[in-house]
């Protein structure tokens, strides 16, 4: 059970007070109406007919008023649950006939007003009642609490459009509660969730987590690339929260942990064998070191020993493969060797990330105008790399 908040408590108290007032007003009005009805029935016996004549020294109207007052004395509401105690009509006096509007106004201010049409008079007086405070407060506050509790369990009424939306989300596989929560979310969030639900790699995603995670990561738009990452990450980790965290919190950065010969991106490990790994690292270093990062392929007919020396240094620094080092030292770096390794890297990257996600980390080439030799570099800019 949820705890009461101060706001809810104030709500209950205000509702209780309002119910008290309504109940009190209603009781008085009911009582006044019943007095009026009773008066209507007994009118003939209450108002003697000969008040204009009769040689009276006493005031005739005073006589009638006294008679009516006597009849109304100690008006007592009957119901045991009533909030009113003893009631009395006070200051009853005759007036000129009241119009209907005036009668209503009297009623509104809890005054009794009676018509004496045979004498062209009306009588009007105040209704004073003692109030049973304990019954009043007890019953009405109890009612307020019950109302509050009931309202907690009854779903708020929904408009037709919202109902249609809820049904729509239920059809997409959400439970009624989930559907209702999503249906009231803002349009961007709904768009995102709809995209996520419809994305096949996310088919096994727990539906209850959609809204929670989209809200927690404060997503308000989703690119095709973010969606692809999320799909891949979920497929890899089978964990909704991990997938969201890696997709939206980790930078899209290719991370070389050369000492451990590890290559990761957004927490996904890409398996590369030793030789291609160092080649990839070497290309990455080139990309990071100079502005454009282009590396000129050696001439097909002649191996390049300068570039080979760089690679050998790199491999030796991190304990690379002895055979590969020897080969480079003996034969130098050939264009063929370089092409083979680039192709291996490409194959492994696509295998690990898929073509779409891998593509910025693959190579691009261009032909040098003078020598007609090829230049290669990794497409992604240098911020996309990190070497530990």
């Amino acid at each position, binding site marked *: 059970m949820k705890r009461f908040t101060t706001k809810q408590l104030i709500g209950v108290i205000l509702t209780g007070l309002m119910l008290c007032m309504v109940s009190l007003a209603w009781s008085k009005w009911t009582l006044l109406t019943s007095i009026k009805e009773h008066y209507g029935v007994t009118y*003939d016996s209450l*108002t003697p*007919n*000969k*008040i*204009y*004549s*009769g*040689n*009276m*020294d006493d*005031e*005739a*109207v*005073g006589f009638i008023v006294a008679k009516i007052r006597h009849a109304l004395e100690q008006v007592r509401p009957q119901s045991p649950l009533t909030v009113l105690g003893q009631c009395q009509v006070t200051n009853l006096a*005759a*007036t*000129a*006939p009241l*119009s209907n509007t005036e009668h209503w106004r009297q009623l509104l201010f809890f005054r009794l007003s009676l*018509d004496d*049409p*045979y*004498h*062209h*008079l009306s009588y009007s007086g105040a209704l004073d009642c003692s109030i049973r405070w304990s019954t009043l407060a007890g019953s009405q506050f109890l009612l307020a609490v019950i109302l509050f509790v009931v309202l907690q369990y009854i779903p708020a009424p929904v408009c037709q459009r919202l109902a249609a939306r809820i049904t729509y989300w239920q059809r997409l596989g959400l439970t009624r509660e989930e559907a209702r929560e999503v249906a009231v979310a803002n349009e961007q969030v709904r768009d995102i969730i709809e995209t996520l639900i419809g994305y096949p790699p996310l088919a096994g995603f727990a539906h209850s987590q959609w809204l929670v995670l989209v809200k927690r990561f404060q997503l308000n738009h989703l690119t095709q690339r973010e969606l692809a990452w999320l799909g891949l990450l979920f497929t890899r980790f089978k964990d909704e929260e991990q997938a969201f965290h890696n997709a939206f919190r980790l930078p899209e950065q290719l991370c070389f942990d050369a000492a451990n010969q590890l290559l990761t991106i957004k927490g996904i490990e890409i398996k590369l064998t030793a030789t291609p790994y160092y080649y990839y690292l070497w290309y990455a270093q080139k990309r990071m070191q100079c502005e454009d990062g282009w590396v000129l392929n050696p001439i097909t007919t002649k191996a390049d020993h300068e570039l080979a020396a760089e690679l050998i240094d790199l491999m030796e620094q991190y304990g690379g493969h002895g055979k590969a080092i020897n080969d480079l030292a003996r034969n130098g770096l050939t264009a063929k060797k370089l092409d083979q390794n680039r192709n291996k890297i490409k194959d492994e990257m696509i295998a690990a990330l898929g073509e779409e996600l891998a593509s910025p980390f693959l190579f691009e080439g261009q032909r040098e105008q003078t020598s007609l030799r090829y230049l290669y570099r990794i497409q992604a800019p240098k911020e996309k790399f990190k070497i530990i």
Partner: protein
Amino acid sequence: MPIEAHKITGSLCNSPVIQQHYGSVRLSWQPRETVTAVNILNQDFEVIMGREHSLKGLVPHFSLLYSPIISFDGFSVFWFSHQAIDFSTLANQRIGLVEDNLSHTHYLLPLQDLKARSSNIDDLDIHYYADNYSLYEAFDNREVDMISTIAVFRNGREDGLHSVKITDRNSATLFVTNDLPDKVRCELADALSPIVEYLTRILNLISVETSQSGCQ
């Protein structure tokens, strides 16, 4: 008028001007047929409400003894009926009047109207009641079809009552004894204002004529 009579007597009793001129204030409920020529000649009452011609009928030189102070002129009297009123079938209508040959509203005016509309009053089915209370009761119980009274009768009764105006020139006047000092007249007129208020309302009057001068 019975309403708030104690207010009137109370304000008179408390008035220093009245206290100077009179020893006491007495409220007397006098049915109109019991006012006699002797009462008027003796000026037994300082204030009388009535119609000038009836009072002159009692004492021809009434205007030498009393003069009007407040006049309620030009209020209307109507025939009221539960059905639409058709004077060509008057003989089939049960007509209710009050048996008081000094009453304009409930006796003289309606009879005069019936006389003008019918060849022979004796042929009509007229029922007489002791007072207007009994008359109204008879009408509400449908013992009679038509009665004559003032417009306020409609108040508090069901809609769909039919009415035809008999006259809009009915009147009533409050008289006070002549030769009263101005300030006493003014005080009396002041004290009588609850009556003016009440009658203005029940007679639907727009204005009431008061004939007094030198009041502040």
